[in-house]
C-alpha cells in the first residue's frame, strides 16, 4: 500500500534537483546536474538495475553511434563507460561515405551497469536513493518537489523525469501477462495519475524483446561467425585508442526459414498483438518476428543474430526474433532455426507496454511548457533506445541545472547535431510509435558526422561547464592543425614528375597532363590524403584524427559547402521567431487544422512551425504575411 496521511514526512536532506529513474537517461541527467554543482538525488526502484540494458546487448549502431559521440563531446558519460566494458566493436557502413560511418559495440551488460553505477556513486553532489516516486509536487505551475511511495517529501527546484518503460508497465507473451517493468522489475504504478492531475497528456507505447538462450544449447557450426573490427575505434574522444585494442568475442548469424514462418502464421491468433490484448503502439523499425512475417510475406528468410550478453554469462540474445507469442510457440519457432534446434530458453521473449508522454508538451529545452522546473528525457518522452535516452537525459539534466543557474536553456539545433534532430522531432512532430534515431532524419548529415562530433559540440560542452579546460584547449589545437593542413594541401603544387605519374598509375589514377594541387588529387575518388604521402614532400606527421578531418573536408568539399549553404537557409527560418503571445485564432486565413496544431505546439520559430505535420507550406506563407503586417 502506498503511504497514508500518517506516514507523510518531509525529508530534510537538502537537494536542488531530483532525477526520477536511473536508466540511460537518468544517469546522464543526474551526472550533468551534479557536475554543474547542484545537489542532486537520483531515485530508482532498484539500485541493482542502474544503467540496465534490458533489450539488445549493444551500444551505438547506425545514427545511434553518432548520438553516443555527441553525448561524449558535450561531456556525457555513455561513451566512456562503453569503451571500458565492450566485448566487440564494429564501424558500420565503412564502405559508404563518412557521414554514415557508425560505431557499434557489443557490451558486457553486467559490466556496463556496474561501471556506470561506480561512476555515479563516486560523483560529488550526487546521492542515489532506492525508492519509487509517486507524486510530482507543484504549485502554481511550478515544481516544488517529489513525494515517494513511503510518504517522504523531497523539496527541490527542478525535477527530471526519466522513467523509461516503468510507468504502469505490463509484460506480455501469449495470454500471460505480468504487471512488471522490464526483466521482471517492479513497475511504477502511481506517477501517471500524479502527472495527469498536473494536466499532462499520456500515451501508451509498446516495445518488445527476444528470448535469451543458453550458449551451451547452441550449435555454432551451423552459423556464420561475425567478428569485430581488426582495429577498434573508441566511442569517447577522451579514450586512448590503444586502450580499446582488446580480445573480442564473436556474434553469430543464422536465418529463419519457411518452417519458422509457418509456425508463426499458424499461431498468429494466439499473439496478443493480433488478438488486441496489447493496446500500446509498437515501433515499425524493430518489428517482432511475427510482424515481419505478416508484413513481408514474400521474404523466405529473415536474419537472426546470436549475440553474447556478456563475458561471465552463458545467456545469448536472439537478435531479429523479438516476439510476444506464447511460450510453447516460442520454443517451436526458435528451434526451427539452424543452430538453434536444441536451444534452451533462459528468459522468454515478451512485449512490454508502458505510459509515456506526447513530447509536444515539452519545449526544445525538454522542460514542460505547463510546469516550470519539470524536465523529462528518454523513453518517457516517447523515444526508444539507450542512446536516444542518454542524449535527452544529458540535455534535460543540463537544462534543469541551467534553470537553477538562471541561464537560458541549451538547444542543439538540427544543423549542430543528431541530438538536435532527435529533440526537435520529438517536441515538434506527432509520433504514434517509439521514436528511433535514423541518419535519414538528419537533413544535414554530411556535416553531422560521428568523426567530427567534438568539433561540433565540445565548445558548447565547455561553455556549459561539463568539459575541462584541458580538453577544450586540446580541441582548439586540433582545430588549428586541421585548418592549417587543409590550407597547405590547397596550396601545395604537384608537378608532372615521373614519380608523381608512376604513383598515380600504380593507384589506378589518370596521369597528370599539367600541374595541379595536392587538394585536387585528394578529391579524386580513387585517391586520398594518405595514399599521396610519398609525393607530398613537406608533409609533417599529424595525429590520425587530424588527418581524417583533412581528408574528409578536402574530398567532399563540394558537398559539404552545399550543405553549409542549406544550413544558412535553415538558420534564416529558425531565426524568424514567433512571438510567445501570438494569437493564432486571429490569423483568419489559417486552416483550422493548422490553427489547432500551432496552438497546441506553439512553435518558437517559423522554422519549427514549418516542421509541424498538418501545417502546410501555404499556412507558413499565411503566417509570414501575418507576422509582417
Amino acid at each position: 500500500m502506498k503511504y497514508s496521511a500518517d506516514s507523510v514526512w518531509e525529508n530534510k536532506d537538502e537537494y536542488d534537483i531530483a532525477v526520477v529513474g536511473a536508466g540511460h537517461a537518468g544517469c546522464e541527467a543526474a551526472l550533468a546536474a551534479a557536475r554543474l554543482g547542484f545537489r542532486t538525488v537520483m531515485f530508482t526502484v532498484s539500485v541493482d538495475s542502474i544503467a540496465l540494458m534490458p533489450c539488445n546487448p549493444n551500444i551505438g549502431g547506425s545514427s545511434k553511434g553518432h548520438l553516443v559521440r555527441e553525448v561524449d563531446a558535450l561531456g556525457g558519460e555513455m561513451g566512456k563507460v562503453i569503451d571500458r566494458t565492450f566485448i566487440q566493436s564494429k564501424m558500420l557502413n565503412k564502405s559508404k561515405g563518412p557521414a554514415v560511418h557508425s560505431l557499434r559495440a557489443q557490451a558486457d551488460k553486467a559490466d556496463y551497469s556496474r561501471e556506470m553505477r561506480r561512476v555515479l556513486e563516486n560523483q560529488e553532489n550526487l546521492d542515489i536513493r532506492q525508492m519509487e516516486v509517486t507524486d510530482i509536487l507543484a504549485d502554481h505551475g511550478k515544481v516544488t518537489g517529489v513525494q515517494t511511495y513511503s510518504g517522504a517529501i523531497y523539496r527541490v527546484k527542478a525535477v527530471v523525469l526519466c522513467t523509461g518503460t516503468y510507468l504502469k508497465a505490463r509484460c506480455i507473451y501469449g495470454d500471460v501477462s505480468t504487471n512488471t517493468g522490464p526483466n521482471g522489475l517492479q513497475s511504477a504504478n502511481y506517477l501517471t495519475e500524479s502527472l495527469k492531475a498536473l494536466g499532462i497528456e499520456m500515451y501508451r507505447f509498446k516495445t518488445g524483446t527476444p528470448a535469451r538462450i543458453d550458449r551451451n544449447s547452441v550449435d555454432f557450426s551451423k552459423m556464420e561467425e561475425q567478428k569485430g573490427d581488426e582495429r577498434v575505434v573508441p566511442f569517447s574522444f577522451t579514450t586512448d585508442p590503444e586502450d580499446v585494442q582488446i580480445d573480442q568475442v564473436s556474434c553469430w548469424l543464422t536465418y529463419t526459414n519457411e518452417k519458422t514462418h509457418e509456425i508463426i502464421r499458424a499461431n498468429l491468433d494466439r499473439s496478443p498483438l493480433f488478438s488486441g490484448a496489447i493496446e500500446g503502439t509498437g515501433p515499425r523499425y524493430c518489428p517482432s518476428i511475427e510482424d515481419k512475417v505478416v508484413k513481408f510475406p514474400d521474404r523466405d528468410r529473415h536474419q537472426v543474430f546470436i549475440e553474447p550478453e556478456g563475458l561471465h554469462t552463458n545467456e545469448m540474445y536472439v537478435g531479429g526474433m523479438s516476439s510476444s507469442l506464447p511460450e510453447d510457440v516460442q520454443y517451436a519457432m526458435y528451434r526451427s532455426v539452424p543452430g538453434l534446434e536444441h536451444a534452451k530458453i533462459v528468459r522468454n521473449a515478451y512485449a512490454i507496454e508502458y505510459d509515456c508522454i506526447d513530447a509536444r508538451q515539452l519545449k526544445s529545452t525538454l522542460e514542460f511548457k505547463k510546469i516550470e522546473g519539470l524536465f523529462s528525457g528518454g523513453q518517457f518522452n516517447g523515444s526508444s533506445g539507450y542512446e536516444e535516452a542518454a542524449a535527452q537525459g544529458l540535455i534535460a539534466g543540463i537544462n534543469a541545472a541551467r534553470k537553477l543557474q538562471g541561464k537560458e536553456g541549451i538547444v542543439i539545433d538540427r544543423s549542430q547535431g543528431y541530438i538536435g534532430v532527435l529533440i526537435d522531432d520529438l517536441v515538434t512532430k506527432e509520433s504514434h510509435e517509439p521514436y528511433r534515431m535514423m541518419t535519414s532524419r538528419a537533413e544535414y548529415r554530411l556535416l553531422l558526422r560521428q568523426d567530427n562530433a567534438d568539433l561540433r559540440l565540445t565548445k558548447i560542452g565547455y561553455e556549459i561547464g561539463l568539459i575541462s579546460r584541458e580538453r577544450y584547449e586540446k580541441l582548439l589545437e586540433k582545430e588549428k592543425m586541421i585548418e592549417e593542413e587543409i590550407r597547405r594541401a590547397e596550396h601545395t603544387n604537384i608537378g608532372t614528375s615521373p614519380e608523381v605519374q608512376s604513383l598515380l598509375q600504380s593507384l589506378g589514377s589518370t596521369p597528370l597532363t599539367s600541374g595541379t594541387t595536392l587538394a585536387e588529387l585528394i578529391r579524386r575518388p580513387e585517391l586520398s590524403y594518405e595514399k599521396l604521402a610519398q609525393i607530398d614532400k613537406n608533409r609533417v606527421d599529424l595525429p590520425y584524427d587530424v588527418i581524417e578531418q583533412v581528408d574528409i573536408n578536402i574530398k567532399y568539399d563540394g558537398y559539404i559547402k552545399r550543405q553549409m549553404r542549406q544550413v544558412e537557409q535553415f538558420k534564416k527560418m529558425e531565426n524568424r521567431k514567433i512571438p510567445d503571445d501570438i494569437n493564432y485564432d486571429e490569423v483568419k486565413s489559417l486552416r483550422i487544422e493548422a490553427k489547432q496544431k500551432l496552438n497546441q505546439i506553439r512553435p518558437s520559430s517559423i522554422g519549427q512551425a514549418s516542421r509541424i505535420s498538418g501545417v502546410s507550406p501555404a499556412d507558413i506563407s499565411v503566417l509570414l504575411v501575418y507576422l509582417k503586417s
Partner: protein
Amino acid sequence: MKRETIAAISTGMTNSGIGIVRISGEEAFSVADRVFMGKEKLSDVKSHTIHYGHIKDGEDTVDEVLVMAMRGPRTFTGEDTVEINCHGGTFVVKRVLETVLKNGARAAEPGEFTKRAFLNGKMDLSQAEAVIDVINSENEYALKSSLNQLKGSVRNKITDIRNRILYNTAYIESALDDPEHISLEGFSSELEKTTAGIRNELSELIRSADDGRIIKEGINTVILGKPNAGKSSLLNVLSGYERAIVTDIEGTTRDILEEQISLGGLSLNVIDTAGIRRTDDVIERIGVERAAEYAERADLIIYVVDASRKLDENDEKIFSMIYDKNTIILLNKSDLDTVISAEEIKERAGNIPVISVSAKEEQGIRDLEEQIKSMFFKGDVSFNDQVYISNVRQKNALIDARESMEKVLESIENGMPEDFYSIDLMDAYESLGSITGESVGEDLVNEIFSRFCMGK
C-alpha cells in the same frame, strides 16, 4: 488580420454581352447593399442565391443586373463575395465598378482574388498559379492547358516522379540504417537507369514549359523578306485589318511593327520588319539591323519570298540569317506570274518548309497555320494527354530537379558512396514538391518503414 474589401471586373475587357464585377471581403455585402437596389437587402438574403435589381449611383440608374450573393468560406476566395452580372458592354461594366469603388471597396490588384483564395487555403500553389494563368491566358489553347492543370495533370505527373525518387531513396536509407539486413549490392547500376529515365522525363516537362510559355504568351514571330516581298500584306491578312501601310513603293515599312494575332487559336506575336536590303537610308538601315536582331531571338521566322522576282544577294543574306532557326518560307505572290518555282526554293532551302501563298488572296494561310502547329506542338494540339508547365517558378523547380538528377548520375559515375545519392535525390524530391506545394515531412521515414523490412 483584417483585409480590405476589393472589387474588380472579373471578365475580360471585351465588348461581350455580359460583364461581371466581383466584390470580395468582409464588407462585400454592405458595399453591395449601398449600390444595389432589389427586392430585399443582400445582407438579409440566403447565401448562394441570385437576385434581380438595379445598380444605382446616387439617383442615376447605371444598369439592370443580376447579383449573386455568396458568403464565405464556400466561395472562390473563401471570403464573402458578391458578383454583379451586368448587361452592358465595356463602358457600363466600368461604370458599375466605379460605383462600387466609390462605395467602399478598393480596386483589386492583378491576381489578388487568387492570392486571397490561396491565403485562405482554398487552393494549393500549383492551382493558384494555374488560375492566374487562366486570367492571363489570351487564347483558347492556354485556357485549355490551364484548366487541364487545375485538374491535376501536372500534379499527377510530378507525383509519379516523386514517388519513384522516394522509393529509391528509401531503399538506400534503409540499407544505411540497417546495413546488416539490407544490402546495396548492384543497386547503383539499377539506380543509374532509373535516374537517367527520370532526368529525361524532367527534360520533357521542361520542354513543355517552353510550349506552355508559347501557349500563354504567344509565339514570337518575325517576318523577314526583301523589300516589297509582301510582308506587310501578309501581316494584314493575318491580323484581319490594315495595320501596316501597304504600298507598291519599296521600303515603305521603315519601322518595326508589332502585332498580336490569333491564327486558328494560336497566338502569334508578329513583328513585321523593314525589308532586308543594303541601304544608305539611315532610318531604314536601323530598321534592317533591328530586324536581324529580332530574328536572332525569335521563336519563329517567316521568310516571305516574292515569287515574281529572282533570288538575289539580299535573299542570300537572309538565308544566312535563318539557316539554323525555326523558319517557314512563304512563296508569296503565287497569284502573279512566277519566276521562282517552289522546287527551286525548296532546293535552296534544304530542310526549311516552303509554302506557296498569296497574301492578297489569302491562299495557303491555312497551310501556314498547320505548319506552325506541327512545328510547335509536335503536330498534336490535344491538351488531354500532354502536361504543360506554364510558369517560371515551376519551370525553375523542374530545372533544379533535373540538375539534382544530373548530380546523382555524376556521383554514380564517380563511384561516390550511396549515401551521397540520397542527398541529391531528396533535393530533387523537394524541388518537385515545391511545384505542388508539398513539403518532405515524414515521407522518407514512412517509405522506409512501409517498404523495407528493418531488423532487430
